[in-house]
């Protein structure tokens, strides 16, 4: 294959570019977190911001997730636009109160007088043998909370344009970055901001809709390539946001394919995947010939690499499960 002509954007660069542009554009934007300023973040997603914007706007914090999130709420309702990093999504357990009992409630409780423009960025997901407490996706913990938005871009272009949208949004946004995407490269965004709440067809197809987020989108695309070679034409839908949910896009896709597979890295019960299936069943039952979920087993993320690989629904597993549900055998070896 020839090298793409257009310069490529790395996911972690998308993040720092979005941050820099919004810090530049709006002096109400501030950014803080543990080791995000001088060190540029443990995932190296925010280098250079501290030097450029100074310590009043970009700073390192104590290891105090609750204070960080409480401070973001207080700053947001008084006119700033805080962005903060919670290093690993697993630590969102500690920040929950300020987000759920405060940030997500104030717009309603203030009788629509006080918006809460804040963003929490967090690195989530498994696949690097970081073990059970550094591999979770906190989205399901927060999915049921009205007033929150949850963004989970799969591509560098979306990471940049959606992060910019999140920072300009008037509502609290949980912005989840999958660890196995930081080094991914892809095209630059085509528009400056990508409003939160719309799904995107990552690959059009006719036979089955494979719905995923983050890393799962890439696994689904890989599976779709395999399946295409076997004559199965899978549509891959990148949800991009979990809340608000672009149910119309899901229903439109399922209306075409009549079959829905949801790929969710987390547990089957109570995850975002099951919720989406529930919504489709309620609103599109007549379209559904088949619907199933590929999720992980009901236990924590294992450390041992083979255990973790088997635990996660990867491209092979997606392809195999589509084959199975569509009544096709394994591909003959070429």
């Amino acid at each position, binding site marked *: 294959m020839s090298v793409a002509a257009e310069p490529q954007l790395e996911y972690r660069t998308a993040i720092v570019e979005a941050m820099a542009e919004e810090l530049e554009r709006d002096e109400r934007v501030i950014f803080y977190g543990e080791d995000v300023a001088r060190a540029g973040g443990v995932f190296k997603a925010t280098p250079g911001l501290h030097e450029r914007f100074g310590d009043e706007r970009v700073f390192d914090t104590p290891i105090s997730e*609750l*204070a960080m999130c409480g*401070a973001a709420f207080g*700053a947001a309702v008084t006119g*700033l636009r805080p962005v903060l990093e919670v290093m690993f999504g697993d630590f969102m357990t500690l920040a929950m*109160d300020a987000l759920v009992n405060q940030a997500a409630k104030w*717009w309603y409780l*203030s009788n629509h007088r006080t918006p809460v423009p804040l963003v929490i960025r967090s690195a989530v997901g498994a696949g690097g043998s970081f073990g059970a407490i550094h591999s979770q996706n906190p989205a399901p913990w927060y999915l049921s909370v009205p007033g929150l938005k949850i963004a989970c871009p799969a591509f560098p272009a979306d990471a940049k344009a959606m992060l910019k949208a999140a920072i300009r949004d*008037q509502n609290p946004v949980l912005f989840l970055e999958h660890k196995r995407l930081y080094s991914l490269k892809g095209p630059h965004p085509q528009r400056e901001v990508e409003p939160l709440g719309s799904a995107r067809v990552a690959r059009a197809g006719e036979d089955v809709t494979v719905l995923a987020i983050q890393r799962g989108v890439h696994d689904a695309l890989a599976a779709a390539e395999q399946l295409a070679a076997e004559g199965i034409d899978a549509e891959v839908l990148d949800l991009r946001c979990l809340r608000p949910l672009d149910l119309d896009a899901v229903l439109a896709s399922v209306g075409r394919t009549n079959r829905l597979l949801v790929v969710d890295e987390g547990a089957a019960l109570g995850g975002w995947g099951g919720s989406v299936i529930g919504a489709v069943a309620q609103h599109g039952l007549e379209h559904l010939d088949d619907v199933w979920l590929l999720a992980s087993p009901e236990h924590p993320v294992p450390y041992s690499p083979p255990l973790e690989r088997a635990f996660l629904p990867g491209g092979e597993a997606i392809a195999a499960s589509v084959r199975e549900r569509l009544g096709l055998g394994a591909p003959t070896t070429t």
Partner: protein
Amino acid sequence: MKIMQSFASMSRRPHRTSHAAATVAAEPWLARLRQMLLIRGFELEIQRQFLRGEVHGTTHLYNGQEAISVGVCSVLRDGDYVAATYRGHGAALALGISAEALAAELMGRTTGIDGGRGGSMNVIDLERGLVGCFGIVGGSIGAAIGAAISAKRHGGVAVAFFGDGATNQAYFHECLNFAVVRCLPAIFVCENNLYGEFTPMERVTASDDIAARAAAYYMPSRKVDGNAIADVVDAAEEAVRHAREQGGPAFLECLTYRQLGHSKSDPATYRPTEERDAWLARDPIELEKARLRDVLGVDAVQIAGVEADVARELAEAIEAALAAPVATPENDCATEYAA
């Protein structure tokens, strides 16, 4: 180290009950008395309206602690912020929310300060600097450090009110430390009324000196008689000046007493009679009336005039609140998101 500098500027002072000098002009003190009376009258009225079924759920009345929110808020100015608790009617009124809008909120009326959506525990009014009343013990502390980040940009300050019980919460520790290392203009005001719900402080708090906890973060702190408004004002002025001048946060422990139970259903029988009586004898309003008369030479008729004025204002406020429409799905239309 920057955080060290702020340590010296405000020293701990012994608990004292002395009064401000007699040369002080009476007007601002009369205005504060008026606010205390308004709060007291408001709370008593709310208690009645609760029994009449016009106020719902639960309420946490502020009787006995009026000098604290009135005293502290009286030294604030536009652009400052306050985060208060579920026991927040005092702070709300002290910040200038009208008794009518607050009563209407508690009665679930459309004219309530938050349209009847929040109720007693969730009063919010950023227009008057009230970041909110927080139903979560300690929540006010988190909000205040954030508001202080904002306020720092324009020389403002942010105040957190919270109780003795809140000093054992996660928010307390993380946020005090955060405020010091970030040198934020935050004033932490602990209203130590000796109890958290039905439990006396010493049974759950590994300290008999809350102000000393602040000192562990190298934060200047002071303990005052929270029932003596002149003391509260003096300490608050010092703390606010310190914070406004970019000296970093400051801490006030205000000793006080809840004259009623924790919430509407609590007869507060767990408190020793002598303790209660001793504190009732030090009612902050009566103490201040006496000081106005005896120290500032205000005449009794003038005080009676303020009382009558407050009573009239309250009666009108309650009447107007009662007359307003209840918030119903027909007149309240919620959107999930701000646009």
